[in-house]
């Protein structure tokens, strides 16, 4: 297929959100040496503006969907949905990072440039329809995240988190790539559509090479979304990384990882679904069980959220195992709800942690409700949503996922998943008991007043969680339409 070597205006327009993010990131790197203050809020403002502009451009671009760069990118509803989601995650990360970086005396220029680069990679993952672009997006996102995890160079825990994330992340990428190479050999193409067309006739009895490729890519992506049995990096990384970075890692790369998971497995590998469904089934059950039971015994709040994040990856995999458009829409809805409630919970830890991130244990939440009722109320909303209580986004997320699973006759997975969410209620409720039924401890005594940025960082995700719980149709309709476009 001859491709015009020179990109046209349409191509560039469809690539505009990523271009904006990369330009702004580069601009910050250029400006960084010119700004004397180490923790200047200027870069945060610039990042916020860029992300808002990026969301506007991505939404405007959705009115003219189609491929770009000869089929390398596919800007459809699915891509727009995830682009808006990851850039929205970016906004929710920038807000708590203002007071956090000021308190820890962190270099804001480097932080925000890396954040923008990572998000640009995730946007690329969302819109890619060719394995080479998926790979490049994955790596732009991952490599920036490795550096972000080790952002505090002098902090031993941050170093360790970065190293573990880096080693296991690049190991996973290598596996993913090996799968891509096998797909290329078996089908002679790396375009997802063409792969699907070439696998289609082999539906009944696919060659070993294609099944092996699907398995290898499953392992690689499983690492990226921290699904069990590839989850061992997540608790260490989330605990050791700076708190806003942990929040980012648990929402941004995970959402983008699931975007390519859905895109690759439901389009390219769609015809051989019966062969990979048991894999997803097993991984999802294992993630839910390992995540929830390990979270029960944790003493560190960030580590507990890491295990809960593994369990939530399991819930999304249930939707993938359903292998239907309803399932894809449910997964997309869940990722939005999850991003809101999880980033919110991490933002509270970031607020409470104090200089040097001393206070991140569950014990440190003692008596928070007496000292700062508003913060405690916000955390209550996030935790109730993580449990899946009605009127919150988490409830409808789980509801849609398990409904999709039942429609696809995954009765056992649904039953075991529901039992799991009951177990999960225990460790989230423990935090509520700490906040409301204890006298204030040293952390609650030392908590600083809510700054406007921190207030926005708590209220926005709380509003999101409640809106998703009261008017779930708004996002679900959009997700349903977007997953229809995904062939």
């Amino acid at each position, binding site marked *: 297929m001859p491709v015009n070597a020179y990109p046209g205006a349409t191509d560039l327009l469809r690539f505009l959100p990523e271009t904006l993010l990369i330009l702004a990131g580069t601009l910050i790197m250029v400006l960084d040496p010119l700004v004397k203050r180490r923790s200047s809020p200027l870069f945060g403002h610039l990042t916020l503006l860029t992300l808002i502009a990026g969301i506007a451009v991505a939404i405007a671009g959705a009115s003219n969907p189609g491929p770009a760069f000869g089929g390398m990118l596919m800007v459809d509803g699915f891509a727009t949905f995830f682009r808006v989601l990851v850039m929205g995650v970016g906004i929710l990360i920038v807000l708590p990072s203002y007071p956090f970086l000021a308190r820890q005396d962190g270099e804001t220029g480097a932080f925000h440039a890396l954040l923008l680069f990572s998000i640009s990679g995730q946007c690329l993952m969302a819109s890619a329809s060719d394995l*080479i672009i998926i*790979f490049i997006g994955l790596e732009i996102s991952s*490599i920036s995240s*490795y550096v972000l995890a080790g952002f505090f160079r002098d902090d031993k825990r941050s170093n360790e988190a970065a*190293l573990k994330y880096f*080693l296991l992340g690049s190991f996973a990428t*290598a596996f993913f790539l*090996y799968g891509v190479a096998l797909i290329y050999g078996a089908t002679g193409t790396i375009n997802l559509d063409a792969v699907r067309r070439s696998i289609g006739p082999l539906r009944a009895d696919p060659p070993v090479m294609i099944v092996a490729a699907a398995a290898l890519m499953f392992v690689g992506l499983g690492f990226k979304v921290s699904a069990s049995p590839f989850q061992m990096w997540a608790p260490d990384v989330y*605990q*050791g990384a700076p708190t806003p970075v942990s929040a980012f890692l648990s929402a941004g790369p995970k959402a983008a990882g699931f975007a390519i998971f859905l895109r690759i497995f439901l389009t390219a590998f769609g015809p051989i679904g019966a062969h990979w469904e048991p894999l997803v089934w097993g991984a999802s059950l294992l993630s839910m069980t390992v995540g929830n039971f390990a979270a029960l015994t944790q003493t560190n709040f960030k580590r507990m959220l890491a295990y809960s994040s593994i369990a939530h990856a399991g819930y999304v995999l249930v939707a993938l195992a359903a292998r239907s458009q309803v399932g894809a829409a449910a997964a997309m809805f869940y990722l939005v709800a999850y991003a809101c409630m999880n980033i919110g919970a991490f933002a509270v830890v970031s607020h409470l942690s104090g200089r040097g991130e001393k206070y991140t244990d569950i014990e440190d939440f003692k008596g928070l409700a007496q000292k700062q009722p508003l913060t405690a109320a916000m955390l209550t909303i996030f935790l109730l949503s993580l449990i899946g209580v009605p009127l919150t986004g988490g409830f409808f997320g789980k509801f849609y996922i398990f409904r999709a699973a039942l429609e696809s006759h995954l009765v056992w997975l649904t039953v075991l998943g529901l039992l799991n969410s009951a177990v999960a209620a225990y460790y989230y409720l423990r935090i509520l008991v700490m906040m409301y039924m204890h006298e204030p401890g040293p952390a609650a005594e030392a908590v600083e007043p809510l700054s406007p940025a921190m207030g926005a960082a708590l209220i926005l995700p709380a509003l999101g969680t409640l809106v998703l719980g009261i008017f779930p149709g708004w996002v679900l309709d959009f997700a349903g339409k977007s997953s229809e476009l995904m062939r």
Partner: protein
Amino acid sequence: MQPVSTIHYLVLSAALLLIGTVGVLTRRNIVIILMSIELILNAVNINLIAFSHALHQVTGQVFAIFVITDAVAEAAVGLGILIALFRNRETLQADEIDLLKW
């Protein structure tokens, strides 16, 4: 003696994948773990180029160039992280890096 065919390249690549995976899982020195990951990436490159040759296409070779570039970027960041860690901890043994429960 039979000529070298695609299947020979695939066997070589699978062997490299195996050596790399065993290396990552069993070695304790972090630099050697990094080298093992590079071995897997080169296994991927051999595969891509062998397929590219067999299919008479250029796509695989272009992909391999991207993989090489990515491996360089990854190694640069990885060594940077390693140096930051070594300054604080003075060790390169994976099992001594246990501040956070592994």
